[in-house]
């Protein structure tokens, strides 16, 4: 992994999700659509854009530059996501590309798209609230009760915690606010 500071896809922490997909270049716009096919291998309903990992797509003279940022420092899924990007670009006739990894600004769940949050909940994972929210309510994705109990700060992956619903008794994962 290469540690680089972003200077292209700069979103500040406060900016929330700014849609950068308004680039008028047809090729770039096609690639945005293509990359929607690349999903988080652990949470296959979320695309890299939904997750906030895909930061930018741009065209230089001779290649396409894809900028991504890691979720958690040690997330083993990052390598798979990178390979999936490579494979879909090559398959779709874009052999000249470069994938850049930026660390700054650091990834936050505030970059997760609203659509992504809805998909998460339908998938059975309670979505994260906003980092700036005063209180974090963890709502049961099954019965929507707010009466839930933390079981463990970590779930099957670093990004999730385990909860149990006190109403319907279902155990579920919660995507942590970070």
């Amino acid at each position: 992994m290469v540690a680089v500071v972003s200077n292209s896809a700069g979103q500040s922490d406060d900016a929330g999700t700014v849609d950068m997909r308004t680039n008028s270049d047809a090729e770039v716009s096609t690639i945005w659509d293509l990359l929607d096919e690349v999903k988080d291998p652990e949470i296959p309903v979320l695309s890299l854009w939904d997750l906030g990992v895909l930061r930018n797509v741009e065209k230089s003279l001779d290649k396409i530059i894809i900028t991504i940022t890691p979720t958690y420092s040690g997330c083993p899924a990052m390598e798979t996501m990178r390979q999936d990007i490579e494979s879909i670009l090559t398959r779709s006739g874009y052999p000249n590309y470069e994938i850049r990894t930026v660390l700054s600004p650091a990834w936050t769940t505030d970059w997760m798209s609203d659509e992504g949050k809805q998909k998460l909940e339908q998938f059975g994972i309670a979505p994260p609230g906003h980092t700036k929210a005063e209180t974090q309510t963890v709502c049961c994705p099954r019965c929507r009760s707010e009466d839930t109990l933390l079981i463990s700060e970590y779930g099957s992956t670093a990004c999730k915690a385990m909860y149990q619903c006190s109403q319907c008794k279902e155990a579920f994962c919660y995507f942590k606010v970070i």
Partner: protein
Amino acid sequence: MPDNADNNLTLQYAVRLGDDALILGHRISEWCRNGPFLEEDIALSNSALDYIGRARMFYGYAAELSGGKKTEDDFAYLRDCREYQNLLISELPKGDFAWTMARQLIMDVYYLNFLSALSESVDPNLAAIAAKAVKETKYHLRRSTDWVLRLGDGTEESHARLQKAFDEIWGYIPEIFELDELEQQLVDKGVAVNTPELQARWQEEIRGILTEATIEMPEVSWTVRGGRSGYHTEHLGHLLSELQYMQRTYPGLQW
């Protein structure tokens, strides 16, 4: 623009920060499949991944500074004990669960302060790594605080084990807050963290948690140091022989 000499100092600094993270991460990973119960096993394994990811970021940056002469794997797998510069506290065996949690609390409070300070470094890459890692450390600290309170203010047995753990670790703490010549030079340039400045705050935060956990702050009557100059406890060699086994047996092996 930084010249080559500066680059070399920063490279060495990045490598030792990587060493701290890799060695502690490896120790925590030893709990994988040995945790007291499933959720805790998973939680510790995930924290270990955070640390190993952090090590990769520091080593990756060091590799970049080496101008392509080294890779992150060279730093992790092809250096021997004397070349490792991690703090001794990171390499101590994991002990029992109370022992691990005592060390984690000490390190989590330290890292929260250290990484916040490093995120202000004039070196944008170190600052970026720190800003990312500090978010994960906040979760680590929540957990280690919770466990220290539960074990300290728990049963007679858990209290005794936790107190013993803090007593045993205490002499390894002074090293964390000392600067050697390398770090002093980088502190002067605004690159490295001035760790002695963090100690008072660390002490107060730890005191608060230990008091609530009914654990006594040990008195320092002995100290051990040497990690930053490559003098290690006998434990590091054993750890490295496990960590580096595959690369030493099959050089250049890739998954």
